[in-house]
């Protein structure tokens, strides 16, 4: 099975965000691989191990961290990587999807995988927009796959742990929420090897346009501690207060 996995760099979810007008202040913002894309990669690697074939990873060069992200994917077992553009400004999900659709065009993939969502996708989900662009069937919120003959059986999570299975004729696009197994770790030495392997290709593209027809006019951070009564002081003061609260709630 020949598989493409689309990777996105997103603002590090553990970082505090600062704003600059109607956008994030991106000057000192750290980016990480979208966690759902990490699961998409894992599911792709598992499928390749089961069926043979290849995994090719794609990412837009919208952050400095993208190259390392692609090398890490190669070190984990992807056969090739393509970095689309360099030093690009952020572009909306529709614009990203259009770039991926063009890049995937000649790949002849059986399956295109990406994370089911990313935290910045205000105008729709890239995986499904790519499916629409390629005219392929898609299923989102996938939590496992089993390869079949000309098809793949996918498990989709509805909610509250309820799942449903589908048979999906190939080629197809899947939005992965969780891989069957936790994403694998890879040693730094292997990433260094990947850097020297020549498996990553830089593809020159122009700055893509936003294509969603959705314009952000304002951004706000939620008020600090809105709702919560904030406990002042150090961890000892916090523990004292929480103990009091537990007693007041009748559970101590």
């Amino acid at each position, binding site marked *: 099975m020949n598989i493409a996995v689309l990777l996105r760099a997103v*603002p590090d*979810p*553990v970082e*505090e*965000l600062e704003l600059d007008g109607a956008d*994030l202040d991106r000057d000192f913002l750290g980016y990480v691989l979208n966690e759902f894309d990490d699961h998409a990669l894992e599911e792709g690697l598992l499928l390749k191990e089961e069926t043979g074939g290849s995994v090719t990873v794609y990412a837009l060069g919208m952050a400095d961290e993208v190259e390392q992200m692609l090398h890490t994917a190669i070190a984990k077992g992807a056969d090739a990587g393509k970095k689309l553009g360099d030093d690009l400004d952020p572009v909306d999900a529709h614009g990203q999807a259009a770039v991926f659709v063009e890049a995937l065009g000649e790949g002849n993939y059986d399956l295109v995988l990406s994370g089911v969502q990313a*935290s*910045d996708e*205000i*105008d*729709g*989900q890239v995986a*499904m*927009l790519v*499916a*629409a662009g390629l005219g392929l*069937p*898609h299923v*989102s*919120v996938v939590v496992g796959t089993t390869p079949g003959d000309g098809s793949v059986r996918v498990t*989709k*999570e*509805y*909610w*509250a*742990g*309820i*799942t*449903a*299975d*589908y048979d*999906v004729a190939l080629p197809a696009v899947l939005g992965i*929420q*969780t891989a069957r197994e936790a*994403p694998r770790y890879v040693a730094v030495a292997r990433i260094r090897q990947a850097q020297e392997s020549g498996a990553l290709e830089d593809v020159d593209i122009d700055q893509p346009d936003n294509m*969603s*027809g*959705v*314009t*952000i*006019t304002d*951004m*706000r951070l*939620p*008020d*600090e*501690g809105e*709702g*919560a*009564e904030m*406990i002042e002081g*150090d*961890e000892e003061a*916090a*523990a004292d*207060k*929480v*103990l009091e609260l*537990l007693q007041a709630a009748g*559970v101590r």
Partner: protein
Amino acid sequence: MSNDVLVFVEHLNGEVTDATYELLATARKLAGQTGGSVTAAVIGTGAASLAGGLGGADQILVADTDALGAFNPQGHAEMFASLVTSRQPRVTLVPYTSVGMDVGNHVAAATSQPLVSYCLKVDAGDALTATCQLYSGKVEADVRVDGDTAVFAMLAGAAPADGGRSGGAGAVETIDATVPDLAVSFVGIAEPEAGDVDITAEDILVAIGRGIESEDNIEEAQELADALGAALAASRPIIDQGWLPKTRQVGKSGLAVKPKVYLALGISGAPEHLEGMRDSSVIIAVNSDPQAPIFGVAHYGWAGDLFDFIPELTDRLEG
């Protein structure tokens, strides 16, 4: 284009979901702004029997067919898209759920309309505008849509479900239920297995999130839970890493819990998580980021390092 608001009716096992009633509540407000009516489209197994419960709509379009199983990502999306094409509503609403994600993206792409995700609020005045949650709820954004029509994917809790249970004319129209050729076929549905601990039945939950950083640190949180006589629960990233079983997951794709005390440690408070725990009697949150959305729903909060906090509280409970 009409001035109408079209709602995708999400249903499972013969029941319309609360997410749908929330959409209908939003739709009623929007129809008041556009001067149009609210149309609900219910497609699939048992659709005809569900129409009676959709009194929040003025018009209910029913495409009853057993050929789609519980839900078919392609079949439902294509059939709903053809309704959007033929009825030309000003506003189309889908839930931001597993089902709504398949439908909304396809419909927007197939009808060349803008799609707005993660919506908390929509307005249909002169222009279509919305307020959305981005970056796992850390940022609120106002958006404006180019053009006269759009699809909005609404977050859970954006409007009260009770506001969408009545108030419409409720006229039922049976429509063509021909199912297109499908590359996706429904096989079957599975309910979750019971776990070792039922977190929905616990009085106290110690819930951990991404802030716990590594699997090795879970033991420390477990010690605190033991000292408290509490069960250990977690947000989705912890479960996806395989650090705790799925039965311990709180939130949209896990379980909804209402303990007497919910102690959230290192949980930022993504909307999907808040959906599963916001009804807890007392919510206490510890997070290093003072702007974490968890503090928006918590009753008490401490902004600091959970690895400083956990041993302090464990000592007091054991001492």
